[in-house]
């Protein structure tokens, strides 16, 4: 009873907020609706018993990715007239992406109707016992059966991260403004940081 109510609440909110993402006029409102959609999707994950993934969705997407999204959208000064002008030009591309997504949905429903997917190998190893908690089950699969794929995914992300840092890193010439040497700042004392000057009238101080 409560599960059913919760399911319909979360599902309705996901669909409603998803609709508002594309219909909202203000891009900041769009991002906020998107965040609500993520959050309700996490609620649906909890209902199917995937609480670990639900928490990861909230931590990663809502807590980090969407914050940066919001950050960027808030700081951009978006010209709505210019955006609508591009609508006709981008219309075919949008239709194409929508068709691909529709095909994926149809295939997903077809695969679901064909029966459940057998996880693990035929001899029973790799399949997760029902008694295991989410996190233990993930660990048991990721660090045994799928260890190479898992490590490869981690390595790709690491390379992407280092690449992004290298692309945005600017090497400043030594002593340029903006470079902070915290150690030097902390070591400063009154003797070397201040000077006594006795300027004569109308002469000023040479710095």
């Amino acid at each position: 009873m409560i599960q059913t109510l919760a399911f319909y609440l979360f599902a309705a909110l996901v669909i409603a907020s998803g609709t508002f993402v594309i219909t909202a006029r203000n891009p900041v409102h769009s991002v906020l609706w998107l965040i609500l959609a993520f959050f309700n999707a996490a609620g649906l994950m909890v209902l199917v018993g995937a609480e670990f993934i639900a928490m990861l969705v909230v931590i990663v997407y809502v807590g980090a990715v969407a914050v940066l999204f919001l950050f960027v959208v808030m700081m951009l000064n978006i010209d709505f007239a210019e955006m609508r002008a591009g609508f006709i030009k981008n219309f075919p591309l949008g239709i194409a992406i929508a068709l691909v997504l529709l095909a994926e949905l149809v295939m997903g429903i077809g695969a679901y109707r064909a029966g459940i997917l057998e996880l693990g190998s035929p001899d029973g190893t790799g399949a997760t016992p029902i008694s295991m908690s989410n996190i233990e089950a993930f660990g048991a699969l990721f660090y045994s059966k799928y260890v190479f794929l898992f490590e490869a995914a981690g390595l790709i992300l690491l390379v992407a991260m280092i690449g992004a840092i290298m692309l945005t890193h600017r090497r400043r010439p030594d002593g340029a403004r903006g470079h902070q040497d915290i150690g030097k700042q902390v070591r400063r004392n009154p003797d070397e940081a201040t000077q006594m000057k006795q300027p004569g009238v109308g002469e000023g101080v040479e710095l």
Partner: protein
Amino acid sequence: MTEFFQSFGMNYEWAWFVATISGILLIALPLMLAVAMIIYVDRKVWAAINLRRGPNVVGPWGLLQSFADGLKVFLQETIIPSAANKGIFLLAPIITFTVALAAWAVVPFDAGVVLADINVGLLYILAISSLGVYGVVMSGWASNSKYPFYSAMRAAAQMISYEVSIGFILVCVVLFAGTFNLSAIVNEQQGFGLGIINAYVVHPLLFPMWVVFFISSLAETARVPFDLTEAESELVAGYQTEYSSMSFALFWLGEYANILLMCSLNTLLFFGGWLPPLDVDWIPWFDIPGIIWFLGKTFLFFFMFSWVMATVPRYRYDQLMRLGWKVFLPMSLLFVAVISGYLMATGHFEGQA
């Protein structure tokens, strides 16, 4: 509590529903009272360190000061700036407040005294606390004013930065405990140090992590050395500048509820939660209810928060970012590797699945 309501002849679902609602009220209402009193404590401690008297007029020793403040705020007019984005402007303090309360659902006050004893409790707290930034960012943007917007930018960057190192510190604790359930983490700490001390903090590898966690929790809640988001000398009152009346009060309550949450996390993860300090029977420690130990330890951490607030000056923003990304992040990352290596070498995981 569900069984208690079932004994009145309710069926299971209704009993569960009523039990959960009353559990929420049993946590939220005392928490609001605790927040009111903790604001008073904060001001008193701050005053004592500054050699002042602090609030001492309303009620005996000024104990009712917070309630007088609350009444004043309640009677004020709610002002919404004409250029503000109205919906988001009003939603922001509600989000801050709700999120600050929601995180308390998984905090165990005593053995078994917890609203939701879920097996991803620690991740839930991390997830909910990462939502806290939205209240600040939304209020900053919706106010349509420069100072709140600067404050929102700072808050977003600061909270994301320190959440990263907090995440790694939590991983260190989870490696020792082998679980994400907060009650189980506390139970694992019983007799952890030399067989008698009930605290993770005594371990030489976890002590530096606790220090980093304590400083990060100051930064996460924007307490004093890191209160760049409401630095009054630069940003008026930060993201709260345009707020008045109840919407301001909600920010205020949410902020202190978050601070109490961080204090209780320090207690639960590193200082043995509801357990007495030593695991020995010849002192009748276990006769004292666990909730007293838990609240006492949490209060001790709150005292430390106030102490820091009264003592240290504010960080500069670039120093804050440097501390988060260049000191705490590499350090906690190193400790995750070192602690996993140590636990493997000492055979901590043998016998576990």
